[in-house]
């Protein structure tokens, strides 16, 4: 029986990343759906970059940014005494960047599909913008939030290249399931690789099955 620690670490990482991205991605998606700013295409392009960039490229730049020699990494060392590279916190930061489009794009589509009409209706009923967002926009975009959350979570589960570049392979800290499988294969322990791979496959399939089932009438739209 292999060590199941990487599975829990991976789930933990994916959950933290999804929660952070819900907080960051929602306002960004809202802004992209409603802005008339000339910056919008540039911001959209940056948001979509992680979809197409090789994870090693993304991981390389993140490694450079998070290293103690760079301003962000140096600040973190000063503030907390530990480095961002090769740490769980660094992995969370990297995952947030890596999974950003999976949160933002479904939400942006949901907000655009909703249009201005319900917002005007809510405003005409004395609902402030924040009130209208939580009482009208969120319930009417529930499918978009579900899609975005599940895609972000499952996508983070499967992360490999970025983790390898930024996090390395430290048990209990950065050794996520994809890294553990890779290492088992490298060391020819196929049985243990099989168990972890099968668990990940089954879990991911089950999650997507549920989401597609719920979205039968409203297909997933990503990218």
């Amino acid at each position, binding site marked *: 029986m292999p060590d199941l620690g990487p599975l829990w670490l991976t789930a933990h990482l994916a959950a933290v990343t999804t929660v952070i991205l819900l907080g960051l991605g929602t306002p960004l998606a809202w802004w992209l759906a409603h802005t008339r700013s000339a910056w919008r295409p540039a911001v959209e392009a940056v948001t979509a970059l992680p979809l197409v960039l090789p994870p090693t490229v993304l991981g390389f730049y993140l490694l450079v940014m998070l290293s103690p020699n760079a301003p962000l990494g140096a600040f973190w060392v000063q503030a907390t005494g530990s480095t961002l590279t090769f740490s769980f916190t660094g992995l969370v930061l990297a995952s947030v960047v890596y999974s950003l489009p999976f949160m933002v794009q479904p939400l942006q589509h949901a907000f655009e599909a909703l249009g201005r009409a319900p917002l005007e209706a809510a405003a*005409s*009923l004395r609902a*402030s*913008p924040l009130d209208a967002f939580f009482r009208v926009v969120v319930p009417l975009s529930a499918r978009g939030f579900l899609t975005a959350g599940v895609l972000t979570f499952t996508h983070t589960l499967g992360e490999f290249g970025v983790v390898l570049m930024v996090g390395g392979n430290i048990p209990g800290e950065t050794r996520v399931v994809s890294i553990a499988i890779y290492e088992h294969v490298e060391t020819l322990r196929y049985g243990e690789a099989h168990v972890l791979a099968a668990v990940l496959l089954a879990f991911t399939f089950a999650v997507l099955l549920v989401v597609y089932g719920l979205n039968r009438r409203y297909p997933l739209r990503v990218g």
Partner: protein
Amino acid sequence: MSADVLTLQVAIDFPAFRLRVDERVRLSGVTALFGPSGSGKSTLLRAIAGFERPGGGRIDLAGAVWFDAGRGIDVAAYRRPVGYMFQDARLFPHLSVAGNLRFADRRGRGAGAGYTYDDVVAATEIGGLLGRGVDGLSGGERQRVALARTLLIRPRLLLLDEPLAAIDRGRKADLLPYLEQLPERFGIPALYVSHDIDEVAQLADRILVLDHGRVIHHDAAAAVFDRLDLQPLAGRFEAGSVLEGHLVRQDARLHLGYVDVGGVELSVPLDQPAEPGHRVRLRIRARDVALATEPPHGISIRNVLPAVLGALDDQPGTAYVEASAVLSRGSGAPVRIRARVTRAAVEALGLQVGMPVYVLVKSVSLAR
């Protein structure tokens, strides 16, 4: 009912359209914003609600400034004490009918109007719909729920944006009485946008006529309908007269009502029982009125009224002349009826202003 003044100085520029309005509207009863589509009436309503930001001007209600370009004031839509009823109802699909009403009620209860949730539900007769989802409602039901929802935020001003436009012709008659009675019953003045002259004739106490982004008339309903110079709009909006009067008596067997208009009696088709003394409004289309120089005999038209020809207005480029006749038996203010006759008829009969004539009214409809 309050008679607050709404100041509208609104300048909005779109690429293909300019709106320029400078009016002070005494808010009492229902004021119609009437005009053909593209005249700017809905844009004006949206600017009042705060959905459209004017390029310049000022909007205030009884001294409370909602927009003032010069002073940089632009009160957010949700802070303006107006209730907006949309053409497409815009009920929230994630809430039941009752949920939609409570959404408004919770946010409007502080406004201190003297009516309750139950009053509004009873007045709009939607008690039987409360538990339903909004998707299963008919168009008419949706608009009644939307009207109730709008009333529940206790607005100081109702903005009704073509609320009947999406309703089947036959169902409109079911909804009109609610729109006619509820603003007065709950003491809230209304601005009513419509391009349907029949709706306006039934509902409006005052009318602003818009055309190409400008207000071309602003007066009491009867006075606006009486103007000959509405003619340029006649293609889109049927020229005619609206007369105010009261019911004198009713003949149930003939389905007729007899209406006194300033001392002149007209008979109108009337199917439902009505109280004598009831105030009514009659609408007579100019094309349904003929003129005669002698009393006609053996004719099916029942309303034959002696009058004096008040104006003849040639319509260049057409075969027609717009005539205005003043009914001669009127005891109060002069009662004018417009007639659309051919130029050939004017010449053949030798019609001249000041001549005694007989006004033959082929059809009259009761606007309310």
